[in-house]
């Protein structure tokens, strides 16, 4: 059938698309290739699918209605979202996929289960369907966990859900998981009379597990968690592929499952951490950032006034701006770009030093500054920036902390030890803007702030930048 060929094309485009997505030069085209394959697979399914008995699909009204609604909302949401809120958006869409997989499982289970008496009791399915039931339940569990987890991750990223954990939570989580699996085995293996009840209990517990799984993980680790949940949803989609013996769902799902898992590991590596470390949250939970770290080594630091900063920067030959998470939080990217233009007018050479894991998602700084129309040529990757620091007069650090922490190079006991950092100390002067002496994501003290070359410029990044622009204009 032609549908087989549609599905084959779909599978191949998914692979090619993903391949192209992993190379900067072809990434955008890769996304379109995958989207084209998806379109072919969807249209093919709608018009060409026939069940074993040769019947075509019906309910076209419902199908097209659903697709239209989804497409419109999806497009609007994706187009409207602020650049910096994109990880939330991805998490949200991922949750939708997980929910979709779970709903499919619910409907298919109800097809197999015949209610003889009203209520939850006396549900039976033909014994030869055992494989089917197993896959349905797997899809249910994985899809629900992915859905609930993604929603919590989404909430954490947009600030509506706070980090939350209690003592022994990991043990509770493991127990919960064991209960879910136990129930699933009981349901599949023993086909009890109250199957349907157990099924919905599994559903509910899976949702709960998804919530509990993500709750204790620090909000800043959400990109890693989203990537992991992403690969879960892939596996849930693959379950659907098994269920309907549908190759494009199977291959697409497994592809994402495998690639997503590896990507999760790669993301952890870029932050110099292990996946386990992220999941059990040995650091990064905001509960800890305030704690002991702040007290460790309160040496003396210098402050610098706004007007002095304005003078120093205006008369420099070369200024390097190091953006970090704080710049994103303060939404100060536009003010930053304005400062850059102002200085450039005055003949100062201004560039940005971009650390690969500055911010809270890979490429965060690129995305942030691109939003403010900073030209790509001004963004230096870490290696290049480190080469240019020795000839730099002033380094202005805007809400970055860990990515300039020398402990990564000098202190083997530090949790970030071994992570490559921006060597801002090679420059003549370092000015650090943040709101307080509080540590950053990794929750550790930063010795840089106490070094002789460094001066602190306290305040919210956006406000400070705006004031600074005013000062420079008045010079």
């Amino acid at each position, binding site marked *: 059938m032609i549908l087989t060929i549609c599905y084959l094309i779909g599978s191949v485009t*998914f692979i090619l698309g*993903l*391949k192209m*997505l*992993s*190379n*900067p*030069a072809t*990434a955008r085209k890769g*996304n379109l290739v*995958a*989207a084209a394959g998806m379109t072919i697979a*969807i249209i093919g399914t709608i018009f060409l*699918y026939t069940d074993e008995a040769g019947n075509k*699909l*019906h*309910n076209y009204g*419902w*199908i097209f209605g*659903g697709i239209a*609604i*989804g497409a419109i*909302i*999806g497009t609007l949401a994706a*187009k409207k*979202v602020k650049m910096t809120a*994109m990880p939330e958006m*991805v998490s949200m*869409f991922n949750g*939708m*996929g997980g929910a*979709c*997989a779970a*709903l*499919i499982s619910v409907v*298919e289970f*109800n097809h197999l289960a015949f209610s003889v008496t009203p209520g939850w009791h006396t549900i039976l399915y033909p014994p030869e369907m055992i494989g089917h039931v197993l896959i349905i339940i797997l899809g249910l569990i994985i899809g629900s966990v992915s859905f609930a987890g993604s929603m919590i991750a989404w909430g954490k990223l947009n600030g509506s859900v706070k980090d939350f954990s209690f003592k022994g939570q990991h043990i509770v989580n493991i127990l919960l998981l064991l209960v879910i699996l136990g129930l699933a085995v009981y349901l599949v293996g023993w086909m009890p009379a109250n199957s349907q009840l157990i099924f919905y209990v599994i559903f509910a517990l899976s949702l709960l597990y998804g919530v509990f799984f993500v709750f204790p993980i620090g909000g800043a680790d959400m990109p890693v968690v989203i990537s992991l949940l992403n690969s879960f*949803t892939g596996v849930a*989609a*693959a379950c*659907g592929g098994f269920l309907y013996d*549908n190759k494009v769902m*199977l*291959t*697409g*799902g*497994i*592809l*994402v499952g*495998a*690639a997503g898992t*590896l*990507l999760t590991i790669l993301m952890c590596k*870029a932050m110099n951490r292990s996946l386990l470390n992220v999941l059990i949250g040995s650091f990064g939970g905001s509960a800890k950032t305030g704690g002991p770290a702040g007290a460790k080594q309160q040496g003396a630091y210098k402050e610098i006034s706004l007007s002095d900063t304005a003078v120093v920067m205006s008369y420099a030959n070369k200024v390097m701006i190091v953006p970090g998470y704080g710049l994103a939080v303060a939404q100060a990217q536009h003010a930053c770009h304005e400062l850059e233009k102002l200085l450039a007018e005055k003949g100062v050479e201004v560039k940005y030093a971009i650390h*690969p894991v500055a911010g809270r998602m*890979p*490429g965060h700084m*690129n*995305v942030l500054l*691109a939003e403010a129309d900073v030209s790509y040529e001004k963004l230096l990757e870490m290696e290049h920036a480190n080469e240019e620091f020795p000839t730099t007069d002033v380094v202005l650090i805007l809400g970055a902390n860990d990515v300039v922490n020398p402990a990564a190079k000098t202190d083997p006991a530090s949790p970030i030890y071994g992570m490559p950092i921006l060597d801002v100390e090679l420059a003549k002067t370092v000015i650090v803007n943040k709101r307080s002496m509080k540590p950053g994501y990794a929750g550790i003290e930063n010795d840089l702030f106490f070094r002789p070359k460094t001066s602190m410029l306290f305040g919210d990044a956006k406000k400070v930048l705006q004031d600074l622009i005013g000062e420079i204009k008045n010079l």
Partner: protein
Amino acid sequence: MESFLNWITANQQIIYIVILMIFVGIEVIGHVPSVLHTPLMSGANAIHGVVIIGAIIVMGKAEHDNYLALILGFLAVVLGTLNVVGGFVVTDRMLEMFKKKKPPQTPPKEGL
């Protein structure tokens, strides 16, 4: 044990497909630069939206009086479409921001 072996034999082609796909998935993104992690995640997210095909099948097979199936199926179609459409659009927007990128630093890959 016996039934497990039988199951493997009966489904050997599917098992091969799954295993090979895992290899492909791992190999294909093995060399991605870290700046592309977020768009790649987002693109992969859109791809697993293929689960919508299952939703369409559920919906299209639902009898006219099975309201549970109709409603849940409809919801599944909407959610699946959200995943697919939103996923691809958001990925495209992210990648759009890299458009000013100079010729790639990584040499063009051989193969594919």
